[in-house]
């Protein structure tokens, strides 16, 4: 009955686009007082489904409604419309931090939240649950017989310079203006990388292409439309690399930023208790293992890394992996002036 109602809702409500909303039913969804935990997120449903499904099955009398957004869409949707879910998941760390700083979330502390490292949570309101290195994906078809897969940004720049004409229009980047994750990664480069200026210059000179999401960019890479996908989530890239032999995933040696997908409980959440249960569930050993085994997402807990490259890197003391820390300084990236400066810089570089 409830399923029917939901389908009805999906059909008639202009707020819910059937394409982006998913219904995950629990073990007994016909009882009265049935609860629906609303989860809004910016993760591919296929990646997040296993853990949502498992949660719904573990709870009595509870189903999960998952709605998928792009990160900026999600931020605007909740803040402008004031329509809040019970759980909000997003990899756009700057926007998540802004939601916390603006007082939209409630604090919650438990044994599992306090297990998180300091850089993976903020104010007991924001909790990282994945650990996703930002990678460079390359189509090896471009490489000559003598060329090696570049290991860091300097080698990448040298490669591009050595084959100047070949890379024209063949470098892919997420659209900074529309893709929150793309902006976060690029802005982080501007703060972290000494090669940022040269990257900007080389990408501009080669007329880098902008893509609206990782999937379309990786698809273009697989098809040979582009040879380099710069700043793509390692978890997605590895998935594509597994399907297409020609693709290689580079975790740059100079530094590899790590995006932390994080969760928060909005103040306006209807099912706060269930949301808290969900946070505990999300951070539990069991769910972290589930993430590593049945999802492309990489868990925050380092005990369950199935990706061997990353597992090795995480354990190394001289690891280039540099997680972007959850905390107040990320608010700078949401500054209007900063954002327009970065975008202007980018536009200038591309148009020259």
């Amino acid at each position, binding site marked *: 009955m409830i399923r029917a109602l939901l389908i009805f809702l999906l059909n008639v409500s202009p707020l819910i686009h059937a394409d982006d909303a998913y219904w995950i039913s629990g073990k007994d969804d016909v009882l009265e007082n049935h609860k629906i935990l609303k989860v809004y997120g910016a993760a591919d449903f296929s990646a997040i489904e296993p853990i949502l499904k498992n949660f719904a099955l573990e709870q009595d009398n509870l189903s999960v409604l998952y709605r998928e957004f792009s990160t900026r869409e999600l931020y605007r949707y909740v803040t402008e419309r004031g329509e809040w879910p019970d759980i909000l998941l997003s990899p756009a760390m700057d926007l998540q931090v802004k939601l*916390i*700083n*603006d*007082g939209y979330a409630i604090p919650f502390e438990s044994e599992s939240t306090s297990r998180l490292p300091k850089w993976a949570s903020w*104010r007991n309101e924001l909790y990282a649950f994945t650990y996703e290195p930002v990678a460079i994906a390359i189509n090896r078809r471009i490489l000559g017989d003598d060329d090696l897969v570049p290991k860091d940004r300097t080698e990448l720049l040298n490669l591009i310079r050595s084959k100047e004409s070949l890379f024209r229009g063949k470098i892919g980047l997420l659209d900074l203006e529309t893709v929150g994750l793309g902006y976060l990664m690029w802005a982080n480069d501007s*703060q972290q990388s000494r090669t940022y200026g040269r990257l900007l210059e080389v990408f501009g000179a080669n007329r880098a292409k902008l893509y609206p999401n990782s999937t379309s960019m990786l698809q273009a890479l697989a098809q040979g439309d582009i040879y380099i996908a710069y700043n793509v989530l390692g978890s997605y890239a590895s998935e594509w690399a597994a399907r297409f032999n020609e693709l290689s995933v580079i975790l740059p040696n100079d530094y590899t930023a790590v995006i932390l997908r994080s969760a928060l409980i909005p103040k306006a959440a209807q099912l706060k208790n269930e949301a808290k249960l969900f946070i505990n569930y999300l951070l539990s050993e069991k769910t972290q293992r589930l993430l590593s085994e049945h999802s492309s997402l990489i868990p925050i807990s380092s005990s369950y890394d199935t990706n061997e490259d990353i597992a090795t890197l995480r354990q190394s003391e001289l690891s280039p992996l540099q997680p972007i820390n959850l*905390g*107040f*300084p990320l*608010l*700078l990236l949401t*500054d*209007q*002036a*900063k954002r327009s*400066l970065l975008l202007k810089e980018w536009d200038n570089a591309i148009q020259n």
Partner: protein
Amino acid sequence: MSNSAYSIKQRIWLVATLVLLLMSTVVYWSAALYAERLARNAFDRQLRGAALQMAESVNLVGGEIEIDLPLSAFELLAMSEEDRAFYAIRHANGTLLTGYRDVPLLPEDVTEAQNHHEWIYDSIYSGEPTRFVSIKKRLLDSDYDAFVSITVGQTVLARQAHALQTKRWVIQFVVAFFVLSLLLIMLGVWVALRPLKKVRLELLHRSPVDLSAISLQVPKEIAPLTDAINQLMSQLTKTLDRLKHFSNEAAHQLRTPLAGLRSEAQSALKEKNQSLREGQLKNVIACSDELASMVTHILQHAELAHRFQRDEITSLDLTHLTLEVAREVAAAALDKNIELSYVGSEDPIFISGNSIALRFLISNILENAVKYSPMDSEVTVQLWVEETSIRLDISDHGEGIPDSEKPKVFELHYRSPNNLNTGTGIGLSIAKEVADFHNATIELLDNQPSGLTVRVVFPALGGVRF
């Protein structure tokens, strides 16, 4: 132990606890206040630092305002890890350049101005108490002149946590200080009171007849106590000696009349002659009278010691007292057909003294005068006031006392070898004792043509002085 009104130890405990409590409160209060102020200054500096860094990043570039906020400003704010922060950069005309639209403007009554273009104020923002810094910056170029304001606010969780932590630390310190001080004070008291305990044990373990001085080494403060005890001991020794002497003498004195009594009574028992036996029996009565008088004097003496010790001093009328005693003695005088006359003040003469003791003084002298007067003679009592003294003269016409014996008659149990009359030898010594107690002097003068004048001189307004 039995009748101790309070304990020095308890008093010191109480006073020390109160003083320490007061001190601890003051220390805690001022330290907490100081810590709070210090924390506020430190966190204000942090906030100002962030605002200044932001202000520095606001510049004119080609006639337009460019803002490139530095990461360091945000990292500075993030040092208060749990706190949220808000900022706004506004043009003087009110346009928001970047940041939070609704950050509260500078209140008009802001008092904490750092200087003329920097202000610090408290406000409520986003439902939480927030501390704000506002900086005004002038942007000046050849064709541009405008002010921008940079406002940065931060919630106060870290400040509060910091203050709380300091207060907790201060409390721990104060409690430790309190306990330690109290222990030290009690140790001090114990050490200080130890000599007293030593004195107590010394006295406790003495034999009851041991009246020697205490020879303990004691601190300066306790020395007066042991000195007083030692003085009491020596007085007790003297008193005890006097008492022994007195009872020896009294027993000795009583033996003579008793022996006389016994021999007279024995003679009377054997005497066949009626008239002789009557004479002997009269002697028995005289001896008995003598004994009674002696016992009276011994009792008086004991009474005096008791009276003087209890210090029963009143204001009394010496005239009245003298006349009263004279009337009591009048009967005895009449027996010997002696004329007892009073010459002197009719008005009351007040002195302060012990009335019973003074009565003994006058009656003893007067009784002596009557006793040593021949039949049909005259005894005169004179009382008058002089400039600096009050004089009482009691004169008789008896044998008088030769000059060589005069100093001795005041000694206890002294009796003149020439004296044929019976006497206890106590009367005059009692008189002397009473006179001494009242700061009076007794003189023995020769009366004309014969006899003795006993002169008692009281200091005017005198008597006993304390």
